[in-house]
């Protein structure tokens, strides 16, 4: 009789914050039985060279993502709004830094 196959450890997404106060950034994923082990594994897999000072782990199944097919409708409209960038405006040299 073959035993039923053991379930695979769930997948976690790993986020790391670097030294200098930047936001946590997604660095990859890993398998772990629970959050505590996921953080321990993340430390071994993703911070062997002082890449960070703080780790977040999130179950992959908990992540909701935008639809890649909607790239155009969602992000193209900003193409026509260059005035949102400061370089759109010419400020005279006499004014100095602004």
């Amino acid at each position, binding site marked *: 009789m073959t035993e039923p*196959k*053991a*379930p*695979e*450890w769930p*997948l976690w997404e790993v986020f790391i914050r670097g030294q200098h106060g930047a936001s946590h950034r997604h660095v*990859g*994923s*890993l*398998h772990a*039985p*629970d959050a505590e*082990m996921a953080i321990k594994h993340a430390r*071994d*897999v993703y911070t*062997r*060279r002082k890449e960070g000072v703080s780790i977040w782990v999130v179950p992959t199944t908990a992540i909701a*993502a935008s*639809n*890649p*097919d909607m790239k155009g409708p969602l992000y193209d409209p900003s193409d026509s709004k260059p005035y949102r960038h400061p370089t759109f405006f010419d400020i005279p040299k006499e004014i100095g830094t602004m």
Partner: protein
Amino acid sequence: MYAQMVTSDPRDETVEGQAFQARIDAGEKIEPRDWMPEGYRKTLIRQIGQHAHSEIVGQLPEGNWITRAPTLERKAILLAKVQDEAGHGLYLYCAAETLGVSRDEMTEMLLDGRMKYSSIFSYPTLTWADMGAVGWLVDGAAIMNQVPLQRTSYGPYARAMIRVCKEESFHQRQGFDIMMKMAKGTPAQKKMAQDALNRFWYPSLMMFGPSDKDSVHSAQSMAWKIKMNTNDELRQKFVDLTVPQAEYLGLTIPDPDLKWNEERGHYDYSEPDWSEFYDVLKGNGPCSVDRIETRKKAWDDGAWVREALMAHSEKQKTKVAAE
């Protein structure tokens, strides 16, 4: 290379397939949730899976020397290097998993022979100098291939390669450092270094795979930008970079026909014995059986740990729910 002789599925000629190719031609990255041809997905699973398996199996020839490293410092360095290889395997398994294959499935395919690992890791590491040769030549050859793969079309694979490349240069340098120490050491040490080079030279050239001038698989993989250079290009680059390094060490590359070709601007070199390569890939390398048996033992011996930790996690969840 770490992925050798990967067969590629044929091009997708549908409208979607052509639009997909246009995205790749325009230099766009393909992400996991994007539409992709089945052939692209399957070929990548084979390629990334084989690459990951090579990193994991690649720990074994070096693990062989951890307990016998000549000094505590060398031991710590080797441990760190082998741990990096485990990490590289994990980055790559995760990249492959975004294509809809599970890590356990890939492991099973390695253990039952449906998936392969690089031919180079079927060779034994007989002396401490082999740790030098492996880092210098094997990691050096891997870098040739992995640096361009940072620009591959599949986002998760490219990102894994960026992480790997950041760490790989340490591996090659520590190998060269061992070679320098031995090549400039006692006559016995120098002899050992030369012997390691003699044994690892041709297997390192084989890592790039046979000439792919006429391979349809290579042509398709290059169109998909999951293979960035031909095998011959990378092998030539490796030879050109390595020969002066061997000269610096005062060691002789075991190829009497090796010589600089002024006209081509490259070294001419002898091809490895390709029948040996095919034989090793079939599982007949000197350590092939041993490598898979060791992985199988690790997998089987670890089963109770994987199960126990899952059971503990389930129990904790019910406890929290009951409180």
